[in-house]
């Protein structure tokens, strides 16, 4: 595969390094000295120039390229690159943005800015933080339909309260679907009477709240309770999205922000979050608001120095788990060495997500499970989809494989899929399917 990467920052460079061995990679940056450095670090073709110019893109080979990854530090530059590349050839365009708004615009249309995939670093980081907080026991977590639907895979251990229960007994949530069980390398489609055994791997699909609730059942000790104190320090974009996503999982976090206008805006947007306007490094304040007894404290301030200060302070006064944001990815190790429980680097998670995506090489948002045995697909039903107007039972019977409809999202709200649920045009459906039937499902949807 021929890949053109624009922007040789941390993200662009780590993607280039990962892809270099199997693919033909060209990396473009406006900064000549940076390009010089890379030349000697990674075995890729380098080019100095402005990636928004079509002449530069043509020279980099965007016309014949299979994929163009726009990964500069500027959102608008990245979007312009996607638009330009699209007019030159027909590569698969990936844009990296910071603004969650651009990502939302793209999500709603699926093709805005001529991008085939838009990844928002802030959302990605917040999502990772929330998964680290909320689902520490999950082996694999993926988001669909812009975070409205979650897929999670859990290891069922000997000590888990649901071991020995039937699926019907364990299913206490309205909007949760038990998609599959992996048992001794076999795929089992769970029926109500299937008994859950230790050593099983269970795949569930549902709303963030119900997935969270189920995690609580599977691993009550490791998983935080919705009554637990979760404190976020710093109300920047990542802090805001972390709080918002925690609200979606029925948590009521606390958020400390130093700027009073920003605090007000945050409080208006986050009805379930207690927003406090104070200096987060004031230990008297932390004690007065009982933040020292927090079950989880997330430090999401703007600079690594402040994050380190707050994290160390929080550990010292007694916070149980401390998760910190780290801007420079080479500090991740350092943060963990001084006793911080988890360090999340937005650049790292973004690069990882893009790399994951390039490996999968398909347009649909998918998650591959158990080394490729089965996949979870998200499909948006268009006018010509064979699913439209039929109910789930009919579709199930017309396919000669086992398909599980994990979730249906209609105009931004979740519809719990039942046998008699009739699918409509415009629905987003999340389907669990064995890998060999993925092609058939894509053709039908």
């Amino acid at each position, binding site marked *: 595969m021929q890949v053109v990467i624009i922007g040789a920052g941390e993200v662009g460079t780590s993607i280039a390094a990962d892809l270099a061995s199997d693919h033909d990679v060209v990396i473009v940056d406006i900064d000549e000295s940076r390009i010089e450095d890379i030349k000697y670090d990674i075995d890729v073709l380098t080019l100095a120039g402005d990636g928004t110019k079509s002449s530069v893109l043509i020279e980099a080979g965007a016309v014949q390229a299979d994929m163009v990854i726009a990964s500069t530090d500027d959102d608008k530059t990245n979007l312009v690159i996607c638009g330009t590349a699209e007019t030159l050839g027909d590569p698969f365009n990936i844009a990296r943005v910071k603004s969650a708004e651009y990502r939302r615009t793209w999500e709603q249309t699926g093709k805005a800015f001529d991008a085939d995939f838009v990844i928002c670093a802030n959302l990605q980081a917040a999502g990772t933080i929330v998964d680290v907080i909320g689902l520490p026991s999950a082996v694999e977590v993926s988001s669909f339909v812009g975070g409205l639907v979650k897929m999670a895979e859990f290891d069922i251990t000997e000590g888990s309260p649901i071991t020995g229960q039937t699926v019907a007994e364990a299913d206490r949530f309205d909007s949760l679907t038990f998609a599959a069980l992996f048992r001794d390398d076999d795929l089992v489609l769970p029926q109500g009477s299937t008994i859950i055994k230790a050593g099983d791997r269970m795949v569930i699909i549902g709303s963030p709240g119900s997935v969270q609730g189920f995690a609580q059942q599977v691993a009550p000790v490791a998983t935080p309770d919705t009554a637990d104190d979760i404190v976020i320090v710093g109300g920047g974009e990542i802090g805001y999205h972390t709080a918002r996503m925690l609200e979606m999982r029925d948590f009521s976090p606390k958020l400390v922000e130093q700027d*009073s206008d920003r605090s007000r805006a945050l*409080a*208006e947007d986050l009805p379930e979050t*207690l*927003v*406090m306007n104070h200096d987060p490094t004031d230990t008297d304040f932390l004690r007065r*608001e009982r933040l020292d007894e927090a079950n989880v404290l997330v430090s999401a301030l703007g600079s690594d120095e402040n994050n380190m200060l707050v994290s160390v302070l929080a550990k010292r006064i007694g916070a149980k788990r401390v998760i910190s944001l780290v801007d420079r990815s080479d500090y991740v190790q350092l943060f963990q060495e001084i006793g911080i429980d988890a360090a999340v680097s937005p650049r790292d998670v973004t690069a990882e997500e893009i790399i994951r995506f390039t490996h999968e090489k398909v347009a649909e948002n998918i998650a591959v499970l158990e080394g490729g045995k089965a996949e979870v697909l998200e499909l948006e039903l268009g006018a010509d989809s064979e699913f439209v107007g039929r109910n789930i039972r009919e579709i199930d019977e017309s396919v000669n494989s086992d398909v599980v409809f994990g979730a249906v999202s209609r105009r931004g709200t979740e519809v719990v899929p039942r046998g008699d649920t009739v699918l409509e045009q415009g629905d987003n459906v999340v389907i669990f399917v064995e890998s060999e039937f993925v092609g058939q499902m894509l053709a039908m949807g």
Partner: protein
Amino acid sequence: MGQYVRVEWRASIGLIGAVLLYLTLPLLFPLALAVLYGESVLPFLVPMAVTLGLGGGLRMLADIEEDVGPREAFLAVATIWLLVAAIGALPFLVAGNGTIAQPVNAMFEAMSGLTTTGATVIGDFGVHSRSVMMWRQVLQWLGGLGILILVTAVLSEIGVGGAQLMETETQSQSSNRLTPRISETAQLIWGLYLGLTVLVAAVLAGMHYLGPVVGVELAPNMNLYNAVAHALTSISTAGFSPEARSIEAFSAAVQWVLIPVMLLGSTSFVLIYFAIRGAPMRLLRSEEFRFYIGVFALFTATSAALLIGTQELDMGLHDTVRHSAFNVASILTTTGYASQDFTNWPNAGQNVLFAAMFIGGMVGSTTCSIKSLRWLVVLKSFRRDLFTAIHPDAVRPVRVSGSSVDEGTIRDIYGYVLLSIVIFFLLTLFVVIDGARSGVDPSEFEAMGAAASTVLNIGPAFGRAGPMDNYLVFPESTRAVMVVLMWLGRIEIVPVLVLLTPSFWRS
């Protein structure tokens, strides 16, 4: 020196002139009735000559090129309500019958009508012609939703200024546009108002005429005249009745029907519009609606619990519930009907009604008083203050129906509630002192009831000014002051007080 009047009064004058010209139209209705019943037509021809002459004259003086800004809106709103009431009083003066032939009383009756208060100074209901009695009802209907909304609906020349006028009239920033053009929004709202009025009249008349067909006397006294008269003053939560005994003159069935009508009149017309257009959930999602219905249920239950044990009233369960619900709805929605003389209720029951006076219905309806939304915001912001007392750094926006309320708006609402209550106390004091001076000696409860009832535009009070009596008990000077306060209360105090500040007239 060097101070100029900076209000573009000529823009306001043009507007006032146009409103007066249009006022000719509603006068045609009682005029037609007078012809039909063979009564004197003079009481309506005289005011029609005034509206045409004065309105036309003002239009000639006017400069319609000027924009209606905030100052012009304040001036126009306050003046229009006062002038329309004055012209509304002319038929009573010209007819020359009974107590309302006297100028202060005529003005009281007209202002009480137009502001949808419903307090009366008619001593003997029998001496007036049916067309004059209907004029009282029409005045109330005109005032119900607000004259300026009507003006905005018919006058295309107002354009953008209409939003200014509607906001000034209702003292709210959210004119809640249903369509991009403000005049179309006003037309929709008025169309809805008219439609609901016709519906209520049809239901009431239907009960009267169709009842006997199926063999039940559902509404013996509710002939077409009464059906129209009560439709005009129920959906407008106004409260005049051509019957001296108010709604006591009608059957239990009529009373039951009027309870939801009054409640509907107090519901936001924007939400009613959406409910009709197929989104009834918006109504239930409105916290203000739930609060207001909750208050109605609570007050009805309290009142019923107090009345059921009262020996003197000797009512069964059905009568107790009906009279409690009816009179609580009447006072809470600021209508001012009565299904029985509640001055005979035990003191505790009367106090429940007195408390209900201060609440009112929803913003954007025909109701008056302080209004549910303001109380809801006050309660929520008070609860927030209790929370921030414990967590001094917490940032907690006050939310109503999911959206947060601006801190400036909260301050305005506190200010408005306080101002209403201060004005109520000052008027009470005046009623007591003026009463003592003239030898009327109103009791404290009579004075408080009458003061609240006029400044909050409800209608009946307690004691000697109860629903089956009238305000003639108070001296003329008190009645004159009440005229001013009904005017002040209906346009939500601010437009009138603003005119009294010197800086309004300067740059």
